């Protein structure tokens, strides 16, 4: 260890940063847009969960034609609008703060405008029953063109954000030649670098194939090709959901907990591993697809196990950072320090519970990735059981936790209803565990996902209890979500005004970034992107080389 260890900053100019009112406003609107989408998604989620318990509330939803329309709303607004809007705002802020540079205000408003336009277009097509295709929109089910165009605009909003972040980094580097990139900016930019590369699949599929087809410019489509392009983006998108939560877990949660992050270099290695390994794994969503060879699926299985590794590193790093905090607060022994953490801080509680839920989400995810074992659970209720413990709680509850300091920071108001915020996290956490228990056991008994179970003419032993637990857990999640929205609205409308000069919460690292040696190469993003592209070519090249130009033989169907 050299003298540069101990308490190294994760940002440039750690002593102060002024964010203008204009920047606060645009980022706040992005966060509000995300949570407005989530509110719509959660209301529909209650209907989905109760379907499994054979309780029909969807009939009372104004304008709702059927269950599958609600399910499309649920998927699109939660998985795409909510996550994109929150992340565009949150990581723009972390990058701006870490580099101590203001971002272009006009460009940020463009991002917001693109998201609103995409949300309105997709919302129009789904709301009027023209796009009941679920958020995976597998062809040859054909949605109205406005659905695909809406998705394109939402993806473009992330590209514009990426452009803003990359430009900020390039500007900072020009002014600080030879300096290491501040950690908080590094991990934010790495997240967008991964996603820009990953989103190419969905971009080619929507712009190149589905949009012209839905406009009637082409007559037929290739279902396996569009499905494969979807999953090219569809697996790494889960890391685009997760990594903003990891940004918070690495550089903010240690601060909430009164600890500190141990290793700066290891954190960078983790994000580089996600950049490299997130994309060449998509076939593990297509293990049961005919038309893709078993050998290529095996390669993707191996790489998927590889991308599990950085999450295990994260488990160690984040737990150690928390342990430092717990021991500083008088905790001792093997586990007692965990109980000594500040369980009265809503931002921390939400994210601690998110982490606990993620341990189960990760374990079930590894089972999904397990090659032929996947056939035991593929497309059963097990799968939503799994991903409600990842994106549906680990990510969502982390975003709740972030909002508990972020919204007061942006609005210069105090958080209203601290107790209610903590209660919200516990209710949501217990709810997701109960619901996942239902969905997972139902899935093991063959209960399908994405199915109007209450009107299915078939049923099996075990599905009834599974359905009841799903409905009960989903109801608790809904209540937890409602409590969160009450806190959010209370804060925005009635929170006591503060002077608002407090900085955002970020930690220090025990091990500083090295100025010489191999670690410096971690900051050369260009090389890592090239390496990621090579891995993608290895993982997808043989399939596309043998499959293209594809079989455009399917006419469109609108079975909704």
């Amino acid at each position, binding site marked *: 260890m050299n003298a540069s260890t101990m308490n190294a900053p994760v940002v440039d100019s750690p002593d102060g940063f002024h964010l203008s009112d204009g920047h606060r406003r645009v980022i706040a609107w992005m966060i509000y847009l995300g949570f407005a989408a989530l509110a719509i998604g959660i209301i529909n989620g209650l209907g989905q969960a109760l379907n499994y318990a054979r309780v029909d509330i969807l009939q009372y939803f104004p304008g709702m034609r059927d269950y599958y329309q609600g399910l499309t709303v649920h998927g699109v607004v939660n998985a795409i609008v909510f996550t994109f809007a929150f992340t565009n705002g949150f990581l723009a802020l972390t990058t701006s703060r870490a580099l101590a540079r203001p971002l272009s205000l006009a460009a940020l408003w463009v991002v917001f405008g693109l998201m609103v336009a995409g949300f309105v277009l997709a919302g129009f097509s789904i709301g009027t029953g023209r796009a009941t295709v679920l958020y995976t929109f597998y062809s*040859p089910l054909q949605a109205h063109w406005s659905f695909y165009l809406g998705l394109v605009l939402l993806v473009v909003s992330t590209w514009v954000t990426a452009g803003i972040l990359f430009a900020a980094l390039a500007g900072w580097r020009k002014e600080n030649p030879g300096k290491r990139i501040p950690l908080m900016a590094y991990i934010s930019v790495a997240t967008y670098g991964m996603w820009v590369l990953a989103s190419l699949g969905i971009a080619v599929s929507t712009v190149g194939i589905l949009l012209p087809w839905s406009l009637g410019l082409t007559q037929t489509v*290739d279902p*396996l090709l569009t499905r494969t392009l979807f999953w090219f983006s569809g697996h790494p998108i889960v890391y685009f959901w997760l990594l903003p939560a990891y940004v918070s877990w690495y550089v903010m949660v240690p601060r909430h907990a009164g600890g500190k992050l141990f290793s700066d270099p290891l954190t960078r290695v983790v994000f580089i591993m996600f950049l490299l390994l997130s994309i060449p794994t998509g076939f593990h969503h297509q293990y049961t697809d*005919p038309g893709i060879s078993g050998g290529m699926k095996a390669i993707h299985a191996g790489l998927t196990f590889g991308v599990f590794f950085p999450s295990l590193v994260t488990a160690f790093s984040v737990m150690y950072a928390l342990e430092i905090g717990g021991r500083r607060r008088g905790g001792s022994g093997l586990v007692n320090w965990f109980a000594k953490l500040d369980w009265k801080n809503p931002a921390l509680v939400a994210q601690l519970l998110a982490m606990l839920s993620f341990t189960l989400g990760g374990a079930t995810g590894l089972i999904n990735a397990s*090659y032929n074992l996947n056939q035991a659970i593929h497309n059963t209720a097990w799968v939503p059981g799994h991903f409600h413990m990842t994106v549906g709680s680990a990510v969502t509850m982390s975003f709740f936790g972030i909002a508990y300091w972020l919204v007061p920071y942006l609005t210069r108001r105090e958080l209203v209803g601290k107790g209610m915020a903590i209660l919200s996290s516990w209710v949501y956490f217990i709810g997701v565990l109960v619901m996942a228990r239902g969905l997972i056991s139902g899935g093991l008994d*063959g209960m*399908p996902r994405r199915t109007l179970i209450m009107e299915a003419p078939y049923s099996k032993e075990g599905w009834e209890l599974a359905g009841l637990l799903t409905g009960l857990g989903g109801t608790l999640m809904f209540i937890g979500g409602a409590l969160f929205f009450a806190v959010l609205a209370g804060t925005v409308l009635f929170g006591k005004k503060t002077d608002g000069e407090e900085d955002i919460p970020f930690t220090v690292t025990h091990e500083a970034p090295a100025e010489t040696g191999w670690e410096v190469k971690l900051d050369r993003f260009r090389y890592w992107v090239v390496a990621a592209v090579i891995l993608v070519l290895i993982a997808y090249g043989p399939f596309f080389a043998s499959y293209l130009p594809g079989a455009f033989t399917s006419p469109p169907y609108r*079975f*909704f």
Partner: protein
Amino acid sequence: MSVKKLEMVFLSLCASMLLVFLLALFYSAYGMGMHLPGVEGTLDPREVRQTAPFDEPGLREVGEGQYEAVFLGMAWAFQPREITVPAGSEVTFIATATDVIHGFHVEGTRVNFMLIPGQVARQTYTFREPGEHLIICHEYCGAGHHLMYARVIVE
């Protein structure tokens, strides 16, 4: 132990765990023959009903205790709706979709694959115990998706 050393121990254990899991999976696939569906052929979905073997969906005996079950998935039914085989039969499912993407899961077994228009899916399974299995379409395929199912009866 220093934190760095603890970390190395933890990460080595994690990496070993992942490696052991992966080796077990590849052994089950390549050593025990539990394969995933692969490339089994293509066809024009607009002419599927004129293309063998899908011109005659149903069950046929191809050898002693060996059957081929040819299935079509369409909105919103399987054809045939039911097959009956004796216990101990080895059944090869050969299936495709006539319109949109459907799912094909013989619940209680590892027969689980997608029906993708234009692609032929194939999987072999031995039904050892008498009983009844639902075949469930587990991919959303339109407003009547939940109505789509069939049965395997093992006597």
